[in-house]
């Protein structure tokens, strides 16, 4: 389950294009989003992720291509007739209504009796942990509570797809982390497909089954979080997801499915084809390696296979649980970042100290 989902597709995007006058906002988006999947659209602001979400909701017309929801073409189908509901970035809680009126808004046109409606609203409020808040005025809620009201309101119609437009960006860090976990739990509970738009790579990694990384209206990579993190397909994706060191390297050649490279400051390494997403043509290239894949060696420790390098500590950033070092490897122009979990026996090195580090070719990615 990486690039292609094994689930039954509920949203099928085929060659979706969107122009605003001369501006090309979506450039041929093609993707399948599966039933019950937690899918994220991740990218910097202006990459088209929100436009795509709004196109699925029906708030934006698309210029070309096709959007299928549950097998039905959505061309010309108004947002109020689509099997999607949305959690807006601002939450869009109706300020002149109570919490219960907000949550029950979608039931206005249903044939349920008043008592049934009240029961359904009650259940929805329980689901998001706001059981006692029904009579509260909507504007008297905290950010986290508004978020929950917006969720309950959007889920009450049991949509096929729930669309979330940066739903956590207005919350502080602590609350955001709490809500991330709650959202995952909720999604598992209701089994509805969630499509989340976010610019926060950490949030996408934490919550998603699969992530589409978007740049300039295109999907740069669509993968599950682990593949995306370990095997980014381009330098740009690698830079956007987490932190990555880029070391100048030289591709020596390919033999028996393995690619030989010479990495500046580290030494020779052999990579598998999977580690070379853009192929391996002999000549100048770059090696990407995550800070946590480089390990400081303390007195008496040695690296496996002698894969060891030494340098000077240029920066120390102490985070409590982790320490980040910038280490200028001997014979290289720019320092590499190394992150070490702080544990007994691992003293924090000082600025200017000499350091040795071990590296592992399995953690490398080659960019042509």
């Amino acid at each position, binding site marked *: 389950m990486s690039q292609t989902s094994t689930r039954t597709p509920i949203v099928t995007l085929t060659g979706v294009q969107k122009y605003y006058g001369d501006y090309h906002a979506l450039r041929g988006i093609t993707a399948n989003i599966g039933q019950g999947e937690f899918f994220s659209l991740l990218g910097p602001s202006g990459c088209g992720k929100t436009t795509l979400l709004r196109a699925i*909701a029906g708030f934006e017309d698309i210029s070309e291509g096709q959007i299928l929801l549950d097998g039905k073409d959505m061309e010309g189908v108004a947002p109020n007739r689509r099997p*999607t509901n949305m959690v*807006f970035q*601002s939450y869009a809680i109706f*300020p*002149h209504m109570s919490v219960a009126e907000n949550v029950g808004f979608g039931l206005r046109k249903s044939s349920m009796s008043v008592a049934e409606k009240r029961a359904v609203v009650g259940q929805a409020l329980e689901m998001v942990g706001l059981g006692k808040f029904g009579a509260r*005025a909507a504007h008297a809620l905290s950010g986290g509570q508004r978020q929950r009201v917006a969720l309950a309101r959007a889920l009450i119609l049991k949509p096929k797809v729930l669309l979330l437009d940066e739903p956590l960006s207005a919350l502080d860090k602590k609350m955001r982390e709490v809500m991330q976990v709650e959202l995952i739990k909720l999604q598992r509970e209701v089994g509805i497909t969630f499509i989340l738009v976010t610019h926060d790579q950490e949030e996408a990694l934490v919550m998603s089954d699969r992530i589409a990384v978007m740049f300039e209206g295109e999907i740069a990579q669509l993968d599950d979080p682990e593949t995306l993190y370990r095997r980014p397909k381009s330098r740009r994706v690698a830079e956007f997801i987490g932190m990555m060191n880029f070391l100048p390297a030289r591709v020596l050649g390919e033999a028996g499915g393995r690619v030989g490279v010479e990495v500046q400051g580290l030494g020779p390494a052999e990579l598998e084809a999977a580690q070379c997403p853009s192929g391996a043509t002999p000549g100048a290239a770059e090696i990407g390696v995550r800070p946590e894949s480089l390990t400081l060696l303390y007195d008496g420790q040695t690296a496996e296979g002698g894969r060891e390098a030494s340098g000077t500590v240029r920066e120390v950033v102490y985070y409590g649980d982790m320490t980040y070092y910038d280490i200028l490897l001997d014979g290289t122009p720019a320092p590499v970042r190394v992150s070490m979990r702080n544990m007994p026996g691992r003293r924090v090195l000082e600025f200017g100290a000499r350091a040795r580090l071990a590296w592992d070719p399995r953690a490398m990615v080659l960019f042509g």
Partner: protein
Amino acid sequence: MRVNALAVFTVLYLLVLYAPIVLLPMFAFNAGTVIAFPLQGFTLEWFAALLNTPALHEATLNSLIIAILTAVFSTILGLFAARAATRYGFPGKAGIVGFIMLPLVLPEVIVAISLLIVLMQLGLTSGTWSIIAGHTLICTPFAIAILQGSFSNMDKSLEEAAIDLGETPWSTFRLITLPLVSPGIIASLLICFTISLDEFIIAFFLSGNEPTLPVYLWGQLRFPARLPVVMALGTILVLLSVALLIVAETFRRRGLKRVGLKDTGGFL
């Protein structure tokens, strides 16, 4: 020292602003027919005279009809224009909105004369309807200005959320938009009503033989003996204006409170 100078200035300013208005009730209750000190004694005669002047009643009725209809028309037009201006982008928007707002600074004499010429060319008689048209023209920019504030205070995704939850654009307007801009609607109705009620120039040019209250008052000024009656009428109008302002402000504050917004100005 500096603080004292400012305090003196403030008191002087308020005096200049309100002293003439204070004179109004003074002479309205003064028994003498001449508007001059010393006061001659207390009387309600002038207020009684108001009751016995049918022409005045007609003028008042005219003014009320004109002011109410102007307020309604201007606010409806303002509602459409303000929503379009804050929600949509369209070619020539800046120019169109600019031209709609222009009567705000256009001399009323110009508006009045051009309307009169148009009416004459069309062979229509001037009167109540033509004044309503003229007043709507000058009041609509005020309505737009007030309602634009209401619309831009309102999160656009509220309307989208309602549509997303199955409502039609029309029911969304009724259930979400109208209640949330209603403080603006009420403010707009009251302001347009007030502007129309004491507008003189357009009414003077277009009233024909159906004078509005300001036009009637102006006519009365030719008769010195009628001056105390004018004073009595003025007193009532001042009290009504203050009452109207209080009502408008109460609605505005209640509206803000209901949606939990911070108070950022207003009339009072």
